[in-house]
């Protein structure tokens, strides 16, 4: 592997990216909660028009002599923010207007508005390219990589300061307006009745989002902002259901994505190219890789999130299947004992356990169930034979009681033929607790036999079995 040179410049890149990511993640949380994620995408596109329009006006003002050379840079920056915010709010207003007039979904209205404004922005960039110093590539793709070159001799580069200030502003707003934001995100109707204007919250959020986009577009590129806005917040929403925790997590994830993204940008391309025998290449673009790293974190959350990740859910289902196998084994051994009472059994257990007709995977599950039964002391293995222990017999009795009570209940309440009762009972027996069994038994006035004429064991009274 190529030696990794981590220079001071790399730290600057990561710090800038982390600050930008955190600044974006804050409004992103609310966009995700309010189901307006694509609004972030739209604003990141239309901000181009805002920036270009502001540039045009500022240069026009300079050539008209309204703005002096000395103040020009400040005016340029200010007008850029004002322009982007104005266009951002305009996007939201036009979208709402078209949605209500055209009776189309707001996503379609959004599509109409932002593509038109973006096209206008592109045209203006073309027209003004000669007169001003606006680099379209910078606007669209960002230039995190060039930070070290620009900030020689500075502790923190200028773009990092801007992103940091934006982060602080967003943080203060979120802390101050937390209650209002929360209420209007989760229950807009209630928010309106207690006097929080839905419109003010909506356009306020749009303003903040547009401002943040402008603050960070110079470093990460205007379109990639969408990844920084939404991905950490969406990832955090998979990991928790508490809003405060979600916001903090999204900030952490933004930092991790910034670091992982830059690291991957430095190392991954040459690694992959060497592995597949491709040509020698240098690093990949950091901004893009941060978006990819954010996606990787999201995917990890999708797979691993406790309680609702894909893998934990699969694991839970597997555990359930194994528990059912264990219980089925107990029930089967109990019925065997019941049938063979008095007469010695000719066939050995191992001939019909696990079920020879089952698929290899099911047999594997059966074996796992058996092991669990043995280790829990419910079943004893002597040679090839399996036998219930006393504790196992007690559990098995409860199961069989559940099964037969359910059969009786079904027979009493549904006009089903006798041979249709077993299937549902075999499924339900695993989910009936003592309370439900008692209730069933009471309702059926304490039956002794199931519809097939077999005895229903008592509740945990082993001594009564004989």
């Amino acid at each position, binding site marked *: 592997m190529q030696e990794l040179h981590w220079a001071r410049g790399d730290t600057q890149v990561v710090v800038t990216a982390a600050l930008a990511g955190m600044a974006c993640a804050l409004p992103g949380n609310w966009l995700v909660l309010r189901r307006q994620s694509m609004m972030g995408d739209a604003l990141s596109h239309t901000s181009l028009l805002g920036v270009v329009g502001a540039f045009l006006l500022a240069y026009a003002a300079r050539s008209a002599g309204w703005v002096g050379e000395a103040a020009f840079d400040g005016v340029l920056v200010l007008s850029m923010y004002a322009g982007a915010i104005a266009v951002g709010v305009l996007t939201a207003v036009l979208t709402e207007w078209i949605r209500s007039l055209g009776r189309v*979904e707001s996503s379609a209205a959004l599509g109409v508005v932002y593509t038109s404004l973006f096209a206008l922005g*592109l045209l203006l960039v*073309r027209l003004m*390219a*000669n007169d001003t110093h606006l*680099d379209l590539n910078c606007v669209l793709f960002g230039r995190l990589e060039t930070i070290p070159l620009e900030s020689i001799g500075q502790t923190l580069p200028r773009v990092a300061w801007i992103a940091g200030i934006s982060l602080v502003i967003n943080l203060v707003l979120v802390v101050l307006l937390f209650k209002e934001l929360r209420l209007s995100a989760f229950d807009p109707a209630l928010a309106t009745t207690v006097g929080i204007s839905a419109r003010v919250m909506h356009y306020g959020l749009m303003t903040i989002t547009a401002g943040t986009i402008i603050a960070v577009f110079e470093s990460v590129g205007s379109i*990639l902002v969408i990844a920084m806005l*939404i991905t950490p917040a969406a990832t955090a929403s998979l990991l928790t259901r508490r809003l405060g925790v979600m916001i903090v997590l999204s900030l952490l994830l933004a930092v991790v994505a910034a670091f992982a993204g830059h690291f991957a940008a430095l190392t991954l391309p040459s690694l992959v190219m060497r592995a597949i025998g491709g040509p020698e*290449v240098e690093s990949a673009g950091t901004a893009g890789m941060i*978006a990819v790293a954010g996606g990787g974190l999201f995917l990890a959350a999708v797979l691993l999130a406790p309680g609702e990740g894909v893998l934990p859910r699969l694991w839970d289902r597997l555990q359930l299947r194994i528990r059912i196998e264990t219980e089925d084994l107990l029930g089967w051994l109990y019925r065997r004992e019941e049938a063979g009472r008095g007469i010695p059994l000719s066939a050995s257990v191992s001939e019909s356990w696990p079920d020879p007709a089952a698929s290899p995977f099911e047999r594997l599950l059966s074996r796992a169930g058996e092991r669990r039964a043995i280790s829990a002391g419910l079943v004893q293995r002597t040679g090839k034979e399996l036998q219930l222990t006393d504790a196992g017999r007690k559990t098995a009795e409860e199961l069989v009681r559940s099964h037969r009570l359910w059969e009786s209940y079904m027979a009493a309440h549904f006009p089903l033929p006798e041979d249709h009762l077993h299937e549902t009972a075999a499924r339900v027996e695993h989910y009936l607790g003592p309370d439900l069994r008692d209730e069933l038994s009471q309702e059926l006035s304490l039956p002794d036999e199931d519809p097939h004429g077999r005895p229903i064991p008592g509740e945990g009274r082993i001594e009564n079995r004989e």
Partner: protein
Amino acid sequence: MNGFLFSSAMLPVAETLFAALQLPAYNTQVVLAGTFLLGVAAAVTGTFMLLRGQALAGDVVSHATLAGVVLAFMVAEMFQAGSGRSLAVLLTGAFLAGGAAIGLTTFILRTTRIRQDAAMAISLGVFYGLGISLLTVAEDFPTGNVAGLSHFLEGMTASLRLSDVQLIGSLSLLAIVLCGVLFKELRLLSFDRDFAATQGWPVGLLDLVLIGLIVLVAVVGLKAVGAVLVVALLIIPPAAARFWSDRLSRMILASAVIGGASAVCGTVISTMLPSLAAGAVIVLSGAVLFCLSLAFGTERGLVWQAVHHRRTTRRVDRQHLLRAVYEIIEQQPEPGEQGSRYGEGEKPDRPHPEPDIRHRPVNRAQLQNCRRWVPARLERSLKQSIREGMLEPVGADAWQLTEDGAVSAQRIVRNHRLWEMYLISQVDIPPSHVDRDADDVEHFLPPDVIESLSRQFAASSPGGQIPASPHLLPPAEQ
């Protein structure tokens, strides 16, 4: 990469026009045909997507294609130097990446509780980030020139070659034909997917076909108008068509016309002014057509809505005027009778004979007092009623009902009072409030409702007579 923005620096205008005039007409026609077909194909497929509520799926696809394009370029270059520039290769990569992005969105939606908007934003961001990263990697490739790849963001209509246009045109045509063949199925899918499923249609497959069509169009549009703007071709024409019709077949037609027209306009304009990127001009032409549709669309365009609203308001005004005339006359003593019909504060409780309402002029002061009209509005209603032959002027500032006017006025007053009685007896509105409540509805009562109301209140209006007002009428000053 830095070069591509400034590489086509603006030519002086004269030279530009000269170049445009010198452009072989054949080439222009070819490009025009390609963009036209693309515009129509995008408009037609976009209509189905709009109706399915997935208008922004094209957005995800078009952003994701960048990764596919660059990846295809790199793979092709590795196998054979120089082959990475083939449009077919790049479009294949784009198609696969677009499909993968939609696949990722669907996966997120199916396995998590992340909602559609966030799922789309995530897969858009991830794929676009990947594309941009790969672009920087591809720059280091020893073979092949990567500069053109970033043009996929903006499109390069002017540099389309005949072979490119043939590919774009035939794929667009394929999309259009597929939409035509599957019209019935796609319509069912767009409006009631569950019903389609219960009818036994393979909705999963149809979903896939529709997504495939979107990806196809988005990919085909890459080279012509650019990745970011092709989504506009998918969304703007269908959204504009919403203002022309609510019927799917007409909506698709309108959408296709708008899509094709904006493609043609944009291409022609950018041929004349090469400094304008064709993609952006096409989209802006579409935006202009959208604004026109929003204003003049026959279904819910602003102008027609305003005209309709004004017509209704004025009709209502005239009806109020006639009722006011009637009620003023009603309160006057019959010729030869002394005093008002009703004493002060006395409520009429019996059916009364209809006053002879013709040849009983009323003046402006009486009308003005009866309903607090804005004077100009009263004037307009008066003029229109005279033109309609409902009123005729008597002397300088007084009017009386014509024969038609008398009939109308009786009908209007009767409807009003029937509805008032209904509100009082069924909705428990106090008689003092019922006048203005009835105002909102009386003008829109269909004949069968009137019929049933008059049956219900037959006792108050024997023989179709006008019932007495259930409340005090505003006093008409003499």
